[in-house]
């Protein structure tokens, strides 16, 4: 694990998402419910990018089949997903967002 600079705080509006990669890993940065969250970007149900989904109230809804994940815990909130997405620690320093990947 290492802290990586992901984006500037000003890059992402409220209830917005941004994909990024570290090596082969597809990751997602979300700004929702007043906080930034970094998670794996691929839905655990079927291949789809969660950054293409709908972000609201600290949750993201997969664009493909409406699986919902809590961005704070990674836990699925409804079918069809049964497995959580991985979440990563996030900190904001000097207007920059860092994630511990």
């Amino acid at each position, binding site marked *: 694990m290492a802290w990586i600079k992901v984006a500037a705080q000003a890059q992402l509006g409220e209830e917005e998402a941004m994909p990024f990669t570290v090596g082969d890993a597809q990751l997602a940065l979300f700004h929702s419910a007043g906080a930034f969250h970094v998670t794996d970007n691929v839905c655990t149900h*079927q291949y789809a990018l969660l950054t*293409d989904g*709908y972000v609201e109230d600290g949750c993201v809804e*997969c664009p*493909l089949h*409406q699986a919902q994940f809590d961005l704070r815990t990674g836990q699925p909130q409804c079918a*069809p997903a049964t497995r959580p997405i991985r979440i990563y620690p996030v900190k904001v320093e000097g207007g920059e967002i860092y994630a511990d990947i």
Partner: protein
Amino acid sequence: MPADLPILIVGAGQAGAMAAGALRGHGYAGRILMLGDEAHPAYERPPLSKSVLLDADGAALAPIHAPDQLAAQAIEWRGGCRVQAIDPVARLAHLGHGETIAYSQALIATGGRAREWPQLPIGTPHVHYLRTLDDARALRESLRSQRALVVLGAGFLGLEIASTARALGLDVTVIESAPRVLPRAVPPALSAWLAARAAAAGVALRLDTRVREARADAHGVTLVLDGGEQLQAPLLVVAIGQVPNVTLAASAGARLHAGNGGICIDAHGRTSVPGLFAAGDCASQHRACADAELRLESWQSANEQARLVAAAMLEQAAAPAATPWFWTDQFGLNLQMLGLPADELRYLTRGDEAVDAQAPRFLLLGIDGRDRLRHVIAVNAGAELRPLRPLVDAQVAIDPAAFTDTTAALRQLARDALAAAPAAATPHP
């Protein structure tokens, strides 16, 4: 009724398995016995016509319960098991070979089976039907050994199989007796758009075409079309719809719907027989959005009815069934449909519907004569369906000009429309 008797679930498909999980979710601690006629633990059927056909090692299969979950939740599952009869007065289920099971309450989640075409019954060589995992595995083997496929039926299943077969490199012909694809699910304009998309993917679509005669021989099937034309099919899939499995429920005295043939259930999933519930493809329920009793063959409807039944069995409150939602993945498209089509709707297009685009992305907004949003179809735009959901739930009127202006953010348009709606139009979840 004795508390130690199990809740019996007949059928281990989407509805049955989801109901079992929902019972535990409500804190029910008694026995749950789930009997399925297939040999496999419950799995999701949507991938059967798509990734399961493509995938050689079976990794695409999506179990409904994780492997350790059945044991962790103490759900007793028995496969390869058929219930012959239910005595709803004595609350006994009769299995074959003389075994009898006493239950406290029972859920009939017997699903449906592929509608058989009498000219080419199930079991005819070179002919496949698709409903179960075993069906999908058999079809997968055939798709690997053949170069051409004919599909009878241009519904969701037929088109998805055609799409998968094209991805595998087969020549594909689809024959449909109706003048358009998906005639019951989408408006004519989208049928035409999808047909063009399928044609661009290399599918030979034969619409408005009836098969007069079919002969199977050692090399495949010969179809004689209405006009006399003959079509050779080394491999044929019949995908002409589904028939609900209602014999068990009917023999237990449950009322069936005269129109759709499903088992009539109330808003909580109760059949007309005390202690007997039904859910999923076999069940017919009044749907407020269409103001009609409907038997919806869908993943979401099975989940919703399972949720309602679990709550009702335990006498707990539950939010009413959600607005119907369907999806299909075909020809590089993810189509999501919220609400139901109706003749009186007209459709607005939001976005660009170029047929040949790599990844077209648009919405069709179905509004009625009072501009109320009743049906939304999202093409590669599932995330945009989400802000519209409360509008469809409450049938809120929208401004056609504003909603077709793609420079305006949909989320804000939806908020504004909801705020402007009369107070009576409160969305239900």
